[in-house]
């Protein structure tokens, strides 16, 4: 693809889609579903009421806390489980049973434990992010080249030092892939959690706009905002791959 094509072709596709959307609304004579222009009005409305920033901030805060806690707990946990085969074998059945349970299935439990609070939503995000991080870290530990570990042991490192100075950095490229997956999941879950458990945030915006008189232009505005912010988060976390001490794990010269 040429340089100008790389920008113009996706732009054309987006415009085509917007046109199709616009005309579909007109052709079907729907009175509920908004046109692109209505959605734009919705975004401006949210912005002028100060809700846009407030709701985004609340959603990001919940993701920040829940995901942050999952990172802080998940990486050390994954390192230990990956390092000690007995620990992995002992916990494996539990992990394998818990893993396929959708985070959404935890909503009733979460509300039971934490009530209709921020904590309930944060707990769901924490839970949803934890598994990808733990599993990616374990995988990274297993994939760490034996000769790095041998070299570390050769220099007389204790086990904690070996884990932090050799195993962790050797596993880091895979851990970062796990962090990226987990962040995507966290963002999916915050929206779902906010539909049930709290009264602010982008998920709440969507469900509230629908309930309060089918204001679908705000529903779709909320959806698009979620998409854009999700893209920003993913782009942000991908920047990690560009660090010089991580390049070896992502680019093969």
């Amino acid at each position, binding site marked *: 693809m040429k340089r100008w094509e790389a920008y113009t072709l996706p732009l054309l596709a987006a415009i085509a889609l917007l046109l199709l959307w616009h005309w579909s609304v007109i052709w079907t004579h729907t009175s509920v579903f908004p046109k692109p222009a209505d959605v734009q009005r919705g975004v401006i409305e949210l912005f002028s009421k100060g809700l846009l920033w407030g709701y985004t901030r609340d959603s990001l805060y919940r993701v920040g806390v829940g995901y942050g806690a999952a990172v802080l707990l998940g990486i050390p946990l994954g390192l230990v489980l990956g390092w000690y085969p007995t620990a992995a074998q002992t916990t494996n059945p539990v992990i394998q049973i818990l893993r396929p349970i959708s985070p959404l299935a935890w909503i009733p439990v979460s509300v039971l434990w934490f009530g209709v609070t921020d904590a309930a939503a944060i707990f769901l995000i924490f839970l949803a992010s934890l598994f990808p991080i733990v599993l990616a870290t374990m995988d990274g530990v297993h994939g760490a080249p034996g000769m790095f570990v*041998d070299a570390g042991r050769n220099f*007389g*490192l204790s086990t904690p030092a070996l884990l932090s100075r050799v195993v962790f950095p050797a596993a880091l490229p895979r851990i970062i892939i796990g962090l990226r997956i987990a962040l995507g999941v966290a963002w999916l879950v915050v929206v779902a959690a906010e539909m049930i458990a709290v009264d602010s945030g982008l998920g709440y915006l969507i469900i509230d706009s629908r309930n309060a008189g089918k204001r679908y232009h705000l529903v779709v505005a909320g959806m698009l905002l979620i998409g854009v912010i999700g893209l920003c988060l993913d782009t942000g976390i991908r920047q990690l791959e560009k660090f010089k*001490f991580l390049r070896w*794990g992502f680019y093969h010269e």
Partner: protein
Amino acid sequence: MAGMVQTTVRSKLSLNGLNMTFGHGDEVVDVLENIDLEVREGEFICLLGPSGCGKSTLLNIVGGFLKPSSGEVVIDGEPVRGPDPRRIFVFQERGVFPWLTVEGNIGFGLFRLSRSEKVRRIAHYVELVGLQGFERAYPHELSGGMKQRVEVARALAVNPDMLFLDEPFGALDSITRLEMRRELLRIWRAERKTILFVTHDIEESVQLADRVVVMSTRPARIQNIMEINIPHPRDISSRRYLDLRDSIFEQIGLAHKI
């Protein structure tokens, strides 16, 4: 008598009746058979044998990474129980840590030193292996030969008394390989380490070693030990060199006959 003891070069390493088998039940593979060897302090030994003969396994046992099925490894009068910073293993595939800079790699084993001593030591070994100007470079920015230098410097920085090298120059191009051999000999003379060097390259072994330990195909036994009494720098077109080289060629050839 005390004078006598001092003048005799003492035994640094002894391998006593080493045997190694892998697997269990019906699928047992004998890898090493009855290996006995004495290595003097400061000696440069090449373990030479065909690929897959078990010489790397032997080096891993000496390094403390593997336990032999029977027999023992004694270094400085003590049986080897595991890897030890006094003896550093330099890996076949480049074992430099890709997440650390040249400095970070060379200083890796120096965590017990003070900051200033660490900085001084790193600078010394950067210079010894000729990597000035690349202190902040990452391994992926270096050539194969430079990475190998980093690994050798990382090993030397902790001031070990033995180095175990497992086909360290195998992945380098032939010009770099020659250069690295010369460098290694220079470092060996400067730092007086006892070196165990595994290779399948006959020329390499005759260029480097005080003694070449010729090993047979699996299960590896010591077939012969050749004394290479040519002073360094060695003239690789001299009669003596060629004779020694050819005689090893012959021995390896015999080892291949069925």
